[in-house]
């Protein structure tokens, strides 16, 4: 073959300058090929939908007690009724409504927790990685110190001093989780800063803003978004764990963790009370993990093709 033949286009789709709608169609096709990504996205949006529109879609006030109708079984069992699809808890509150409202707490904690942890961690990690030397040593020292704090003890401590509230939970997660983001960011910045393409940009005469915005950030963003989805699902998990231990939001707030804690006493007699919030947690974190997996592949042009 002549060099000319060797360089003929193999795939015309990519070689023409595409319009915006064509690009969108391309992304859509790509999305459709990867079913687990769609499933993850649908699951995630269902939870977001439940959180945003909880007053509209929940049939009852989640706080309203009705002792006469307490400990009802789910609708599909012999004793159940469609008035309460998932049954009622020990105080006669509608479990279905409470599960829907619980999404609010979980998503709020997950979203703001990751926002704080991500912002804090990225800034610290980027400074440590880019500046290097003594600044790096100091920042990483502080980060290792935060990592060495026994997180549960820290939570008990804060809850004891500041009381149980949503904001405290978010702050605790934001601070204790920021080292994860800082480490990943620092590692990536170090790797990218020494990479061949940054060197070639410098040799072309690029100034630092171009290096940061065209080279470092685009190569950093993929791993961080992926990390953020996984961390968000982990935070939702931990929040439920704290709720179960009675360390998260006040017991009056319908959260999945609080519901689990309330259902614990009735696990042998009325297992449904704890089952539904448990399933909700599972559903959410599974959706987010599928989504994160898919995002990682989509955000990296090298992996786009290999994904079936």
């Amino acid at each position, binding site marked *: 073959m002549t060099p000319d033949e060797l360089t003929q*286009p193999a795939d015309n789709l990519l070689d023409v300058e595409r319009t915006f709608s064509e690009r969108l169609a391309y992304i859509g096709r790509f999305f459709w090929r990867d079913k687990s990504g769609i499933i993850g996205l649908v699951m995630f949006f269902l939870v977001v939908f439940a959180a945003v529109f909880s007053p509209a879609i929940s049939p009852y006030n989640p706080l309203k007690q009705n002792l006469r109708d307490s400990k009802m079984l789910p609708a599909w069992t012999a004793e159940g009724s469609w008035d309460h699809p998932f049954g009622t808890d020990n105080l006669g509150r509608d479990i279905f409504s409470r599960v829907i409202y619980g999404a609010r707490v979980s998503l709020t904690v997950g979203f703001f927790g990751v926002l704080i942890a991500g912002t804090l961690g990225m800034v610290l990690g980027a400074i440590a990685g880019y500046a290097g030397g003594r600044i790096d040593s100091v920042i990483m020292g502080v980060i290792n110190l935060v990592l060495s704090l026994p997180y549960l003890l820290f939570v008990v401590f804060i809850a004891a001093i500041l009381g149980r509230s949503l904001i405290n939970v978010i702050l605790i997660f934001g601070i204790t989780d920021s080292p994860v983001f800082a480490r990943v960011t620092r590692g990536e910045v170090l790797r990218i800063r020494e990479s061949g*393409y940054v060197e*070639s940009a410098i040799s072309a*005469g690029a100034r630092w803003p171009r290096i940061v915005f065209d080279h470092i950030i685009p190569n950093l963003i993929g791993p961080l978004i992926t990390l953020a989805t996984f961390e968000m699902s982990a935070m939702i998990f931990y929040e439920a764990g704290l709720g179960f231990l009675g360390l998260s939001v006040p017991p009056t707030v319908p959260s999945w963790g609080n519901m689990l804690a309330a259902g614990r006493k009735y696990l042998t007699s009325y297992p449904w009370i704890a089952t539904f919030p448990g399933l909700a947690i599972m559903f959410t974190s599974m959706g987010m993990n599928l989504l994160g997996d898919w995002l990682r592949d989509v955000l990296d042009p090298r992996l786009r093709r290999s994904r079936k």
Partner: protein
Amino acid sequence: MSEQKDVLLRVDGLKMYFPITQGIVVQRHVGDVKAVDGLTFDIHQGETLGLVGESGCGKSTTGRAILQLYKPTAGQVIFEGEDITAMRGESLRKMRRRMQMIFQDPYASLNPRMTVGNIVSEPLEVHSLFNGKERREKVKELLDVVGLNPYFVNRYPHEFSGGQRQRIGVARALALNPDFIVCDEPISALDVSIQAQVINLLEDLQQEFGLTYLFIAHDLSVVRHISDRIAVMYLGKLVELTTRDELYANPMHPYSQALLSAVPIPDPVVEEKRQRVILEGDVPSPANPPKGCNFCTRCPKAFEPCYETEPEFKEIESGHWVACHLY
């Protein structure tokens, strides 16, 4: 092979030391890796100067120090009469337009998140050359020049083979119309079948644009093919510098002799008689080079002064520089 003697670039006493430090918070300076230790040579307008030597001898560091990608520890790099080691900031940035580099690893030197079009146009954007449409045309033209289909502009680097990626690297280096290009082992990461294509491309471009190359390599037959003059490097120092034909016909430094004796000759009769000079031992550490001549620990012809004093890099015959006590 022109006999022009206009010096485009003069390297004078170039040293590049990398500090070795110890300690976690308070870093103590405990020594230096003398990657490049006092190089002096000229590169003439329009020529290709080959720079050979084994791995780790400081070839690539030399290339980077010349382009100011590393700040040299000492010495001067004089490009058309101006000392670029003294330049900072904006003036250095402007100077970079005239000197470019083709990198060794075509997989690492292209940003995986940028399209080929963006990669090739980056140097143009950096120096605000052309505007939108003209720039896109220029990029397509550049891709065409290096033998790539101009319609590849929207593709990403991972969609190309090693040889094609190196062509992208060449297109990028050419974008600013430089006078001088450092080719840092541009073909050592490529398949043998592709190497010849890239070499021919580099030669054609040199003809067309009147480029001057510093061609760093460890493949002696490639260097012989492309170079006008060849510099041989050992442990951070030049041991010999002369024209290509002179070096291959009459290598004077024992290291050059050993190096060249390793090249097979494509003639069975001559190949039969080829005497290999096998060097004993390993290259000493550049952090702790031997006293006297750097090569004395492995030199088959070493005698007393070699262990005591460092040989001077001097012109033995016209245009033939050697650093050896034998001459």
